[in-house]
């Protein structure tokens, strides 16, 4: 998956805002957005930050409901990194609220804004809840104007008021912009545009050149719609950027973004066209980035190549699966923020990968590293879940009644063939009282939804049915003439036995289909001995009835009786081989074929007396049956005799061993029967 890693690579690099990143070509600068957006004057930022800290610490100590709780200040994340609460607060305010962020799955974005590693998103969220959520509410409610404020110094109160006003205003500005019409042109410097809205973002970044300059006359447009604001919290469009100074290795990318709530963009994220803009000769590269009319590109990246070839942007969509899933056009007018799309395509890849490779997934959930990408998986998983949730409402109306001809080929009957979760889910589904764990539910649900989405979005080929002589059977036209159906091969009659003269007469009054007899004359009806006795009784009956058929139908190889022909030592060896193979299937990276081959080699090596079919027979008739009888007794609500990989406490439980091998009356009786017949 070169594509995958390439994307991830780029998006990882995004986290570190160092000039070198730009060489990668894919770069989005949110810094401006974070630091300056929404505030009157970014010279104030430091001051405001300090003020914010002051007010916040006051709030936490005095006002907050849980003011007794000790909160270290400033808070640190798991890796010791300090969190800039102000930035965090601001970022979230700008998006809207905590709920909006969560709803729209923007936590990762927030993390990035705060310069925090993506895998720490969860901690970040926690910190927000612990430190800022209440504070935010308090500020909004104007709580600082109430009586408790007496304790504060007047100056602080003033500052607080100022802060609150500023924050309030920036928030309001966002709302205004959001609800104002879609196309608002703002002319002027970046500073002034930021002052007005806080929604304008600068996406151009000049490599190695920190003092970005925008042409005064260059116009930028802020495009947003109420829907975007509502649904996603932000929408950023940067249309044309002109710059004056460029260094040779500059890369300018223009990303036209719009996060819409439509799922399609998630899918389409795999489809990233790259335009290499070669025709600029002069150094005053004027790069037009967004092509508004091109609705087919959800993401247009213009990479200006100059003398320096380092700037080559390589985004290719080579991944077959994504191709497959993503295929082609579809919902137009979807544009995406580059970063978002990278994340999303990453997520998509992950989902596709998980679907294809669900065993890995299962392993992942059992705390095993998914090829070292566990932390990524974690957030991708969350992302996938949120995406799913968002899509569910919209898509379950018509879940994929469209055929996807292109997918037929690659599909497996049992995609989660080797996955334990699925199996566990099933068994828990059977239970009536036990609550299925949320994870299991989610997993099933998510598989439903994510594929729904695929169905909806994927470009449907016109049904490509497999037509032609390679697929259809030769059906001769009906001539009304019966052609010969070879009467020679009609099967060999096994039953009724040809030497059974009574059959015809019997059949009329023959009663069949009797169930278990309600009562018996055993000393302890229902006891293990009783059951064993009746099994043996019925076996004898069948045996007498069937005569030689008993062997032809392999009834002699049915039931736990066959363990009689196994030495205890052989049974023990078999058990250990099975356990070993299971363990390998679950944890080793070897291919199944390898493990299987080894499994069978082992059985033939360690149990040389037994043919393979004997081993299989033993497995189903004794091994599984014993496990099953353990389940019947111990975990009757979690019965599953079809999962070969399941580890049950008493694999190879010896319970009942004595009953079979011992010299109890029933068993010896049974043995005698065998002798009688043979």
């Amino acid at each position, binding site marked *: 998956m070169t594509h995958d890693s390439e994307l991830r690579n780029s998006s990882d690099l995004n986290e570190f805002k160092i000039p070198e990143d730009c060489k990668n070509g894919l770069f989005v600068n949110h810094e401006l957005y974070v630091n300056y957006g929404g505030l009157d004057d970014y010279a104030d930022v430091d001051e405001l930050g300090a003020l914010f800290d002051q007010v916040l610490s006051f709030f936490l100590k005095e006002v907050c409901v849980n003011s007794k709780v000790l909160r270290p200040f400033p808070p640190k994340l798991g890796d010791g990194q300090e969190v800039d609460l102000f930035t965090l607060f601001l970022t979230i305010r700008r998006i809207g609220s905590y709920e909006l962020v969560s709803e729209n799955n923007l936590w990762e974005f927030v993390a990035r804004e705060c310069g925090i590693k993506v895998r720490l998103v969860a901690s970040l969220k926690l910190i927000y809840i612990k430190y800022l959520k209440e504070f935010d509410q308090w500020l909004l409610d104007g709580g600082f104007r109430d009586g408790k404020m007496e304790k504060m110094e007047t100056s602080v109160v003033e500052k607080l008021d100022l802060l609150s006003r500023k924050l309030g205003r920036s928030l309001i500005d966002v709302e205004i912009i959001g609800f104002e019409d879609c196309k608002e042109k703002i002319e002027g410097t970046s500073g002034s545009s930021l002052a007005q809205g806080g929604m304008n973002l600068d996406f151009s970044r000049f490599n190695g050149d920190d003092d970005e300059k925008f042409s005064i006359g260059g116009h930028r447009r802020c495009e947003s719609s109420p829907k975007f604001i509502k649904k996603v919290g932000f929408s950023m469009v940067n249309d044309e950027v002109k710059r004056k100074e460029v260094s040779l290795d500059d890369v300018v990318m223009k990303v036209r973004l719009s996060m819409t709530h439509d799922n399609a963009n998630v899918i389409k994220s795999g489809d990233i066209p790259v335009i290499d803009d070669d025709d600029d000769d002069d150094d005053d590269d004027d790069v037009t980035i967004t092509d508004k009319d091109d609705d087919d590109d959800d993401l247009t990246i213009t990479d200006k190549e100059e003398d320096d070839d380092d700037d080559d942007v390589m985004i290719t969509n080579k991944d077959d699966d994504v191709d497959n899933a993503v295929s082609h056009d579809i919902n137009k007018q979807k544009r995406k923020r580059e970063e978002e799309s990278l994340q999303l395509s990453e997520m998509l890849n992950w989902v596709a990968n998980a679907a294809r490779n669900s065993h890995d997934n299962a392993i992942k959930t059992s705390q095993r590293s998914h090829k070292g990408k566990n932390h990524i998986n974690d957030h991708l998983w969350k992302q996938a879940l949120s995406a799913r949730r968002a899509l569910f409402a919209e898509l379950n109306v018509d879940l994929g009644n469209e055929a996807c001809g292109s997918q037929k080929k690659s599909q497996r009957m049992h995609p989660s063939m080797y996955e334990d979760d699925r199996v566990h889910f099933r068994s828990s589904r059977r239970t009536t009282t036990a609550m299925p764990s949320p994870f299991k539910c989610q997993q099933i649900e998510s598989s439903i939804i994510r594929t729904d989405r695929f169905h909806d979005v994927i470009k449907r080929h016109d049904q490509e049915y497999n037509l032609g002589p390679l697929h259809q059977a030769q059906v001769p036209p009906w001539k*009304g003439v019966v052609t010969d159906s070879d009467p020679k091969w009609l099967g060999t009659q096994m039953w009724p036995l040809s030497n059974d003269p009574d059959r015809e007469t019997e059949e009329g009054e023959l009663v069949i289909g009797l169930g278990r007899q309600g009562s018996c004359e055993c000393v302890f009806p229902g006891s293990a001995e009783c059951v064993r006795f009746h099994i043996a009784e019925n076996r004898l009956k069948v045996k007498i009835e069937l005569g030689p058929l008993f062997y032809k139908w392999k009834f002699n190889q049915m039931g736990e009786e066959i363990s009689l022909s196994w030495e205890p030592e052989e049974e023990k060896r078999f058990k250990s081989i099975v356990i070993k193979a299971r363990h390998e299937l679950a944890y080793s990276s070897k291919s199944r074929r390898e493990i299987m081959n080894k499994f069978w080699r082992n059985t033939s090596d360690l149990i040389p007396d037994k043919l393979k079919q004997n081993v299989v027979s033993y497995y189903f008739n004794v091994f599984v049956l014993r496990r099953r009888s353990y389940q019947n007794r111990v975990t009757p609500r979690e019965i599953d005799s079809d999962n070969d990989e399941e580890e049950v406490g008493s694999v190879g439980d010896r319970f009942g061993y004595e009953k079979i091998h011992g010299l109890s009356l029933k068993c010896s009786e049974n043995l005698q029967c065998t002798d009688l017949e043979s």
Partner: protein
Amino acid sequence: MRSKDRISYFYDGDVGNVYFGPNHPMKPHRLCMTHHLVLSYDLHKKMEIYRPHKAYPVELAQFHSADYVEFLQRINPDTQHLFPEEMAKFKLGEDCPVFDDMFEFCQIYAGGTIDAARRLNNQLCDIAINWAGGLHHAKKCEASGFCYINDLVLGILELLKYHARVLYIDIDVHHGDGVEEAFYFTDRVMTVSFHKYGNLFFPGSGDVKEIGEREGKFYAINIPLKDGIDDTSFTRLFRTIISKVVETYQPGVIVLQCGADSLAGDRLGCFNLSIDGHAECVRFVKKFGLPLLVTGGGGYTKENVARCWTVETGVLLDTELPNEIPDNEYIKYFAPECSLRIPTGHIENFNSKSYLGTIKMQVLENLRCIQHAPSVQMQEVPPDFYIPDFDEDEKNPDERIDQHTQDKQIQRDDEYYEGDNDNDHNMDDA
């Protein structure tokens, strides 16, 4: 109701010990369990049991390409790594692993279905059962979905030698794509498949819009369903559609694939059918009194498969089975209740009334196209079926209309099979 159907049942003791590999969901041992349970209920006493011949490669090549059959015959677990290209070409591998005695296994189950068809052709029985068969995914040149050889296609080809039209009904949770594909161009076989569709559920085909092409247009019927369909909606839909299909198409013989993975609690399935609901479909099809070839199919929770097919064997024998399973070697598999009933599923039914209504309307509409299409065949063969009783529990108004028309049909209890044959003879004369 005819009480004395002659039933042929096919079983080979060798299938029980076939093993696809660790944790492969397909476990032929279920056939062994089914047979054992059938015998525990003494059902064998009212039917004839045959050991199928092992189908010859040349027989398999009636449908499958010769090179594919030859490869299946040649390959084994030890040599498979030598043929990566062929393995990929024939789609062998994960879903369809190469295991020991694979080819023999294919020969047995395919032989069973072919023999069953031949016995029906030769009027040696009225109903033939081959629980080992029904591997409906296999394609002409490739394996698919645990299926290597498509015994159903081979059986139907055999039946086509004696019958102008064959109706294929598939109640496996998966789409019967192999059979549909094989007969996509012909009107001599109508395929009707009820299956889960959507969410990339295997095999991904089976939209209601897939209706066949060329001469076969409108002769492939797909009823795509969503998760969790229950007995009531399923059987109602099944009856409505199948009765209309039989009425319209007038088949000479019916092939019924009874994949048990549509049962609640199946390891791979996602429907909520009880065994009664599943068996009701068999009962309904049997009531047409046409020659009937019944096969197994999917089914990945062994105990339930054994229960289901035993009950259905009972249904075909007109025998209601008591719930308490007689003591037998495998009783522990059916513990702790040791009952034929299976736990009801807990999957939510995503099939809304309106959804099922839409599907039904669309299918019936397509069926009308057949009625209106001038067809020589249809005129040549007079109707040779009857519409069975309908339960009075029809509540759906638009189904009532169907029932109304159905009520007009005269129920013929007699001479059904012979009538069919008469037709064949008439046609011979012509």
